[in-house]
């Protein structure tokens, strides 16, 4: 088990010694059981840190934020940021390292093991509780969770409530860390692409009908893009004004900016948005599932990225986020590639 006391002690230590600027972790929120991201600067505040199956957020997005903030500062404090990473989150760190978006010394990684389970799917929990309200969800013993509701406590097999991405997870123990908490007890995943395979079994017509209905719901709040640690571009195709525009950018250059996607939240434009995003994440998505979790309309966005992950695996034997030294999928090729155009 991850001992929260150990985690807090380490956090207090690295804050006291000044080794890190601040720590990004999880703390109690005000909306029922849901934890929220915490930014802890004061060693006395480490008591607020928590760790439970509802700590779903991929906090590495805030490293991207910090990086953008530092760029604007005149005398930036370049000490590392302490950050709590689950297995999937640590893979995101590896991708950011691989793409040279961050340096290893920018972060101090406090790894936490998901220990044979993973994180909670709130929708599954709500279904299970049938109207009762969850106040707290905790790790119990191996493979089960303790759910505290407004009408008592119950032990539930984690499998019933696990997020789909955790069921298909290939790294429930961090793959990169400075210090790690919890046991390295990997859960076996027999079918890492089960959800995609289920989708592939449908006919083309059925899939089209499914996606038409799903993507038609999109209100383009861009929460999927906002939550994604890999969506760090300064310039995004959906923004009306390019962020590459500076006060001294010549008018001719501004006039040449192409409008890739219209503002109309209709099926055609929504599809362009989601497919562009899926393509940009091919070979980069580490399946933290944040895009799908944050979607207010419950669009199963994860499928699109998972499909690309499967393509990368089957066509190029490429797995994302395990080796930061490896060339990235889209910026490398092999001499023995059967396609002629590449040579």
């Amino acid at each position, binding site marked *: 088990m991850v001992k929260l006391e150990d985690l807090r002690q380490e956090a207090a230590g690295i804050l006291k010694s000044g080794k890190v600027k601040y720590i990004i972790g999880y703390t109690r929120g*005000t*909306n029922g059981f849901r*934890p929220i991201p915490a930014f802890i600067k004061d060693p006395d505040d480490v008591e607020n840190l928590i760790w439970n199956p509802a700590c779903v957020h991929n906090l590495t997005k805030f490293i991207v934020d910090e990086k953008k903030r530092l760029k604007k500062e005149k005398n930036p404090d370049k000490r590392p940021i302490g950050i709590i990473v689950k297995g999937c989150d640590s893979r995101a760190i590896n991708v950011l390292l691989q793409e040279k978006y961050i340096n290893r010394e920018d972060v101090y990684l406090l790894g936490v093991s998901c220990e044979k389970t993973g994180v909670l799917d709130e929708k599954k929990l709500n279904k299970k509780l049938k109207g009762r309200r969850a106040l707290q969800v905790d790790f119990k013993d191996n493979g089960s969770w303790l759910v505290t509701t407004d009408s008592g406590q119950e032990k539930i097999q984690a499998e019933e409530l696990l997020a789909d991405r955790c069921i298909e997870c290939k790294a429930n123990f961090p793959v990169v860390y400075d210090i790690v908490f919890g046991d390295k007890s990997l859960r076996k995943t027999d079918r890492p692409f089960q959800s995609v395979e289920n989708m592939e079994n449908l006919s083309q017509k059925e899939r089209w009908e499914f996606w038409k209905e799903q993507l038609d719901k999109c209100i383009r*709040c861009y929460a999927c893009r906002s939550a994604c640690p890999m969506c760090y571009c300064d310039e995004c195709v959906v923004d009306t*004004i390019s*962020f590459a525009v500076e006060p001294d950018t010549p008018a001719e250059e501004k006039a040449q900016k192409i409008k890739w996607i219209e*503002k109309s*939240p209709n099926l055609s434009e929504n599809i362009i948005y989601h497919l562009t995003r899926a393509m940009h994440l091919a070979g980069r998505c580490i399946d933290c599932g944040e895009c799908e979790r944050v979607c*207010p309309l419950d669009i199963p966005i994860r499928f699109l990225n998972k499909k690309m992950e499967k393509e990368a695996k089957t066509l190029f034997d490429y797995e994302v986020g395990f080796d930061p030294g490896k060339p990235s999928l889209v910026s490398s090729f092999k001499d023995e590639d059967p396609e002629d155009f590449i040579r």
Partner: protein
Amino acid sequence: MEKILTKKSFPEWAEKLKAYKIYAPILDDGTWSYEVINKAGDIDLDFPNTVQAPKKIINPQREVFLEFGRSDEDTPEIKEVLPEEKPVVIFGVRPCDAKALTLTDMVFDGDSKDVYYLKRRNQTVIIGLSCNTPPSPNCFCTSVDGSPHSEEGFDILLTDLGDRYFVRSLTKKGDTLIDLGKALFTAPKANDKKELTKIHTDAEKKLKREIKDVAKIPPKLKEMFESPLWDDESMSCLRCGICTYLCPTCHCFDISDEVTSVSPFKGYRIRTWDNCQFPDFTMHSSGHNPRPDKASRLRQRIMHKYQYFVERYDHYQCTGCGRCVSKCPVGIDIIEVLNKVRDYG
């Protein structure tokens, strides 16, 4: 006008409203949403609050203003497009969402009139459902001059009395709808009214969330434009648009031209929702952005609702529906932020 309608007769009444386009909350793939109803029997008024407010019907995310095109090189053609002329009924609107429409009226039906909004608004009859229990754990309507049985913005308000609805018509539009099913309604008896009062009083006590001393907030905010509080509270913000797009009172928009065909040249001028939480909302063509960071954008959201709008219209531009709290991916909680503002310094 006050009436009683049994739940058994309810579908029959709804069936009589065939001349109207009917919207009601439906559960689609786990998400409650106001959608067009083809069979009145499908209406289920036992629902928590919907993910999206019914503002999407009155102020749709995309409104076409005009069609433009060119049939030959030299002849531009422009055609005005107005919303479809069709009376609409929305069933099951919550008091917070109806009140939100009255706030948006102040903006679109103020000094300048927005013909698109007003056309939709005026052809829509709003049938409310009072909240016997809070539909969301984050409801806080009573903190912002609202109530679970507020009548503001309704044509008819229904209150669930178990096997029947207490029906209160508040406008002529409402009376007309009741007249269409006249025989189905009966006059309320003394015990119906007694039960109604009890349910309404009990409902107010069930709210779990509250902003205390809310009146202290607008003057306090006025002094807090430069406060470091905004940096702290916005640290976890992802800059997505959930809070504002789901908000029943947010109404900011953008106007753009979309070309749908180059040959023959054709396109639309449209209005779409816009969002103060997006970095490009205030981006100038010069490259300067007066709200360059998430702190200034969170401040804008709070200030607009609890200071600027209050100063201009004497109302909070927030009805306490709790959607922004429930759906924020990182748990930014407007109630907490406002409590901190009140106690700041």
